[in-house]
């Protein structure tokens, strides 16, 4: 069986400094891989490299058996990798000119969902993160927690094979955090969703985590 993620010898540099240094990561399909490490260890960079947003200096990435990056060559562009990403920070990267429902509809349009079906489908995704009543609101009109849930719904609406989460639960209160973790676990089991979850607190994933990876100075020191 092929792995969801097979990354070997990843090297990323910023201004001459190595942020990832021969990092390797192998994640099985349907796994919930928790990535931990001190600040500046390269966790976010690792996720961005997997998503195709961060050019590599060297290394090789395969996603679900398909070659995605080969050294500096981007074989698959980000939109063709089947990857979703929830950025760090309260709703960072949300589209300020689109309301919550329009945001999800945009994603569905990109996936080729017929126009007539988009509104209902978008609402279903919003319901999933309990944002149904706020479908018309724009990111600026949402609280930090609501914005983060919208970011999660947006990532899920793309129905990715791999969902990359960069400290996604920080802005949420404890009950909501538990609720969302439970839903992610359900989605993972139902659809063979693979999760790579960067966090400072592995406990927030609880017993759902299937693998733990530790990054230090850009290299994976324990998996």
């Amino acid at each position, binding site marked *: 069986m092929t792995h969801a993620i097979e990354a070997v010898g990843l090297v990323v540099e910023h201004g001459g400094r190595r942020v990832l240094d021969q990092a390797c990561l192998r994640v099985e399909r349907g796994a919930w891989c928790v990535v931990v490490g001190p600040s500046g260890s390269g966790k976010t960079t690792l996720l961005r490299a997997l998503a195709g947003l961060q050019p590599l200096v060297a290394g090789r990435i395969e996603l679900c058996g398909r070659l995605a990056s080969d050294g500096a060559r981007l074989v698959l562009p980000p939109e063709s990798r089947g990857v979703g990403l929830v950025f760090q920070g309260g709703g960072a990267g949300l*589209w300020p000119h689109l309301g919550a429902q329009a945001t999800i509809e945009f994603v569905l349009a*990109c996936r080729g969902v017929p126009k007539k079906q988009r509104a209902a489908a978008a609402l279903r995704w919003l319901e999933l993160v309990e944002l149904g009543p706020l479908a018309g609101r724009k990111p600026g009109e949402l609280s930090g927690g609501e914005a983060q849930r919208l970011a999660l719904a947006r990532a899920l609406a793309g129905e990715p094979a791999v969902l990359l989460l960069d400290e996604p639960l920080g802005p949420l209160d404890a009950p909501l955090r538990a609720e969302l973790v439970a839903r992610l676990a359900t989605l993972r089991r139902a659809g063979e969703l693979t999760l790579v979850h960067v966090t400072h607190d592995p406990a927030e994933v609880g017993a759902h985590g299937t693998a733990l990876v530790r990054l230090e100075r850009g290299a994976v020191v324990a998996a």
Partner: protein
Amino acid sequence: MSRWLVLVAASCFALVALGPTVAMALRVQVADLAALDLARGAGLLWRTAQLGLGAATIALVLGAPLGWLLSRSNLVGAQALRALVLVPLLLPPLVLAMSCMGWTTWRGGLATAAIMGVGTYPLVALYVARAAERIDARRSDAARLAGGLAAVARVEWALVRPVALASAGFAFAFAVNDFAVVDYVSSLGPKHPVYADDIFASWRSGNDTSKAVAAAWPLVALTLLVVVPALLVVRRSPLFSFEGDFRAPSRVDLGAWRWPLSLLMWSVVAATALAPLARLSWEAGGGARGFELATLGQSLSKALANGRANLQASLLFALGAALFCLPVALVLGHALARSRRLLALGTTLVVLPLCVPPILHGVGNLALWNRPETAALYDSGWMAVLLQAGRYAPLLVLGVAAATAATDRRIEESARLAGAGPARTLYGIVAPLLASPLAGGAMVVFVFALRELDAAILVPAANGTALFRLYNAVHFGRDEMVAALALWICFFVLLPGALWSLFSKRNMGALP
């Protein structure tokens, strides 16, 4: 960003904006460069730089405090002032000089520096206002807790200083490239020759243009040396994501100083923005022979009747140029902002058409497009559009680049991950996000194209414009009709900005 999109946009830009300059540069021969009188040129250049420094200093002294007060204080009528302050920048510099000379007998180099400073201080004010708005509230609050308003002023000045100095650099660039104002202002008293005079004289007196092109390079180099670093400073200064963890600063209560400062700032803006328009209105209404409202009305309707076709042509060409620039600038400005490696080189290439004397841009267009293969284009109104777009597209490209640089990259990345390709991301996410800077930048192109004359005089298709008619008419003195036509041009130049101020709640955000 798709390489193909960037390639297409860059090709369009290269052809329209850089092509004429390249066509002219290819004509320069070694002999022309060798024939340059370097000692005389250096003297002229130094004198020109002095004029530029004077203008930049005045622009800084007037613009920096005004900019801060407009954006960060409870100055009375700040919103209206912010719109009005654009007027001196948008008025043709010679019109400003003419009206200033109507009020004072002061002449010479210093007077020229003062007028150029007055014409460009809005740039400093607008840049400082934007920079001051981007200071995180917590930085100011911390300063206030530490040492009151004085500490706030010190901290904030340190933060906006690079932008203030860079925008004064733009004022410098404007001043050193002008020769009409200095020629006009030093008509009485000692003459104040400048380097741009030399380029224009080389061009006017000769039968070929290569000498003029050779003579132009020191000034082009000086302008680039100031403008490119200034643009990079502006780009690298307080950048943050509006959607990130930013807390907008609150307005400072000026207390007892509110009314005196408001009065002072209103006086400055009124003297520089309203006085020229008042002067023109006075002249159109009869002037020294006795002002009458009825005369003003008659002059305006007569000028409109006589110049209707010219005004229509001006508006058509300017609108065409603005629309042509939009897609090119969106792609190129975005690519420029997101590129790390090519930032300095890209900025230099983009800004080059603005630093080349307009007359050379005009001749370059002639050399480039007047050939059998492009005859239909050359003879149509599209030629005027290409001419104006080539000259002013950099303003829009740089405006889009600046706006892109201030937006969160993750917004686009999310779209890519959601499955949107580069074109869809650009059209569906980036363009709506940059709607204000795009519209504002297009407006800037429209306005500058509307008041363009120097490059347009050489291209037949662009000869029917209102400014063309005005300059021909003004030759024999300024009567009611000339003043009325000038007022109509000012009206159309100022109209888009006025409509924006009245009906849009957003800032234009079109600054490069």
